[in-house]
């Protein structure tokens, strides 16, 4: 069954997509890795970024982690605080 998840965007990912959040079509039971693949399909410009991590509910997530529809999901491009 297919649904969608909402993904928060920051920094360069927000500039490249022109949006601070995007809704991504996504199969239930899909993983973080699947989400990254889907985002690259929907937004090819993301491929220019050095690395992309995903945070789920405020924690860095491994690519095998399974996503739930009510998770707070964020795309984390290379950080540059300090």
């Amino acid at each position: 069954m297919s649904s969608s998840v909402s993904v928060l965007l920051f920094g360069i990912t927000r500039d490249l997509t022109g949006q601070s959040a995007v809704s991504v079509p996504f199969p239930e039971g899909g993983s973080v890795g699947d989400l990254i693949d889907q985002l690259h399909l929907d937004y090819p410009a993301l491929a220019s970024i050095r690395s992309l991590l995903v945070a789920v509910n405020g924690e860095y997530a491994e690519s095998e982690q399974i996503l739930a529809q009510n998770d707070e999901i964020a795309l984390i491009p290379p950080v540059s605080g300090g």
Partner: protein
Amino acid sequence: MIAITSDPIDVSAALTYLQSDQAGAIDFFLGVVRDNTQERPVDRLEYEAYDRMAISEMQKIADEAHQRWPILRYTIIHRKGTLQIGEIAVLIGIATAHRAASFDACRYIIDTIKQTVPIWKKEVFANGETWVNAHP
């Protein structure tokens, strides 16, 4: 104390917070907006944070520092929004009984913030802008 703020960072308030009768050493690291990057003149920096996660990641770093060194008090404050040349972007303050621990903890905290905390910095030049570290 850990905070992300849009307001200028108040160093003397941080010092007051860190002082105690047991604190023989207080070490500060201040990250300040510089007027150039690799000799290219910078007009200003724009910082953006994923606030909720930035706070929790900074808390993890502070907790780890607390495990490693006998810290009496600490403060970590990061700015976001638009910062002009000379403004303080980040303040780390550590109070310990003796100086070695406060130097070491302060350095550990700023070095780790740069690696894990979801805060992003855009350098704005006269003729363009760049998200720092974003591209290969």
